[in-house]
C-alpha cells in the first residue's frame, strides 16, 4: 500500500530529475569523457573534486539512465534537509545517502555508506569533505574513501574530475554561467594490500588531479598548441 500511495511522488521525482538534467545540459552542454572506464552498470564509487553545489548534478546528468538508477550520491543531511524542497530533491530525486555532519550526533557515516554498498548501489562521494575555495586543485582528502575501499575492496574507486564548475557556479553566485562542462572518468583504483592510509589517499588524489585539463591561463607556446583545424 505504501508503494501505491507514493507512486505520484516517485513519478514527480523522476520528472524533476529529467528536468534538472535538461537544465544542466542546456547551461553547460555537459559531456562525459569515459577515459578509464566503460559506461556500464558496474558497482563503483565515483570520487570527485568539489568546488560547487553543481558538481553532483553534473555527474548525475552524464550517467546513462541504467547507471543513474543504481548510483546514490553521498551528501550532507544538514544541507538537504534544510527545507521541504531540498528534502524532496536530495533524498527522492537524487536518492542521496544522507550523512549527518553534526559532531554531537553519534552516527557513524561509514556504516550508512557500507550499508548502501552492500545493497549493490554505486556511490558518488566528494572526499575533500567541503567545497574547495582555494587555488589548489584539491583539498586534503578525508579518510572516508580509504575506509570504504578497505572495507569493501572489490568495489572500483573511480576518480571523476568535474571541470569548469568553479567558473560556472562559484560559491555565493545564484545565476549559473553557460560554459562547457566536462566530466572525466579515470581508471579505477583499489586499496592495495598493506597500503597505509596516507599513501592511498595521496595516490587517489594524484589519480584525480591527473584528469584535470591543463590550466588555460598559461601562455601556450606554438610548439604546444594543438594541430591546426581544417
Amino acid at each position, binding site marked *: 500500500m505504501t508503494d501505491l500511495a507514493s507512486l505520484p511522488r516517485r513519478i514527480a521525482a523522476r520528472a524533476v530529475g529529467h528536468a534538472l538534467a535538461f537544465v544542466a545540459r542546456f547551461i553547460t552542454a555537459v*559531456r562525459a569523457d569515459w577515459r578509464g572506464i566503460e559506461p556500464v552498470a558496474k558497482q563503483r564509487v565515483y570520487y570527485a573534486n568539489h568546488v560547487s553545489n553543481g558538481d553532483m548534478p553534473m555527474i548525475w546528468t552524464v550517467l546513462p539512465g541504467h547507471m543513474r538508477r543504481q548510483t546514490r550520491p553521498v551528501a550532507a543531511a544538514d544541507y538537504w534537509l534544510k527545507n521541504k524542497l531540498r528534502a524532496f530533491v536530495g533524498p527522492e530525486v537524487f536518492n542521496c545517502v544522507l550523512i549527518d555532519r553534526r559532531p554531537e550526533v553519534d552516527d557513524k557515516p561509514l556504516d550508512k555508506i557500507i550499508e548502501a554498498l552492500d545493497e549493490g548501489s554505486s556511490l558518488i562521494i566528494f572526499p575533500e569533505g567541503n567545497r574547495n575555495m582555494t587555488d589548489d586543485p584539491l583539498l586534503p582528502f578525508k579518510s572516508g574513501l580509504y575506509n570504504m575501499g578497505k572495507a569493501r575492496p572489490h568495489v572500483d574507486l573511480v576518480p571523476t574530475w568535474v571541470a569548469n564548475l568553479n567558473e560556472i557556479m562559484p560559491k555565493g553566485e545564484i545565476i549559473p554561467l553557460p560554459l562547457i562542462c566536462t566530466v572525466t572518468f579515470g581508471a579505477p583504483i583499489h586499496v592495495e594490500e598493506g597500503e597505509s592510509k596516507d599513501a592511498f589517499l595521496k595516490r587517489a588524489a594524484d589519480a584525480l588531479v591527473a584528469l584535470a585539463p591543463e590550466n588555460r591561463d598559461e601562455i601556450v607556446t606554438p610548439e*604546444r598548441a*594543438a594541430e591546426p*583545424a581544417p
Partner: protein
Amino acid sequence: MTPETTTDVAILGLAVTGILIAFTIIGEALRLRQPSGQTDPVVEAFNMRVHTWWGLAILLTLAVLAGRIGILLLFAFASFAALREFLTFARKRRADHLSLALACFVILPLQYLFVGLDWTALFTVFIPVYAFLLLPIVSALRGDATNFMGRVAETQWGLMICVFCISHVPALLTYDMPDGSDRSILLIVFFAMVVQLGDVFEYYAGRRFGRRKIAPKISPKTVEGMIVGVLAAACIGAILSWVTPFGLVGAAAMAALASLTGMFGSLVFAAIKRDKGVKDWSHLIPGQGGLLDQLDSVIFAAPIFYHVTQLVWS
C-alpha cells in the same frame, strides 16, 4: 508566407535533399573503394560532415517552414551555444560573473527581440555601443583590476562574434524585397548554401591541389583552394539567383563576397584556436567539434552580406 514563397521553399528543400543524397552516395562509394577492413580518415571525415549537413538542413528547413519565429529561435539558440563555447575559453575572473551572466541571459535575448521587432536602428548599435559600455562598468564595480583589459575585451569580442554577427542572419528577414514579397526568408537559405558549399569546395580543392598556404602557421588553407571555393560559390549563387533580387551577375558576386569573407572568418578563428591552444571549441556536433567550428565562416560573412544587400539592393 504566400503560396509562391512556400513553393520556392519546397523546391529549395528538394534541391538540398538532392545534393545531400548525392554527397551521401559519393561518401559511401568512396568508403566501398577502400580495401575491406581499412578506413581512410579523409573519407570518414567527409561522411561525418555529410551527416551533420543532413541535421543542419533539416533544422533550417523546419525553421524556415515555421517562419519568422522559427528562424529567430534557431539562430538565438545558435548564438547561445556559440557564446557558451567562446566564453569557456575566454579570460574571465569571479568579478566578471555578473557581466557574463548579463551577456548571456539579457543582452542575447534582447538582441534577438530587437531583430524580431525590426528595430534596425537599435539592433545594429545595441551590442557595439550599449553592451560595450555597460559590461565593463559591471565588471569594474566588483573592484578586481587583474587583467581587466583582456577580460572585458574578450567578453566584448565574444558578444560581437556570437550574438551580433550571428543575429545578422535572421536580420535578413527585415530586408524589404524590391518587389514587396515576403521572400527575404529565402535569402537566408541562399546565404547559408553558398557559404557552406564554398567551404566544402575550398577544403577539398585545397587538399587535392593546394600548394601555396596563405598563413602556414595558422591554417592549412591554400590560395588555390580559396580560389576554387569562391568560384564554386559564385556558380552556385548564379544557379540560385532566382530566389534573390540580385539578378544573375549580382547573385554570383554576392555569393563570391559571402564565401570570401567566410573563408577569412575561419582563418581568424583558426588563429584564435591556436592562441588558446584548443583544437575544437566543444564536442557538441559529433566528429566535427563545436558549433563555432561549424559556423565560423557564416559568422564573418553574415554582417557583410546583410549590409551590402541593404546598401546596394534596397
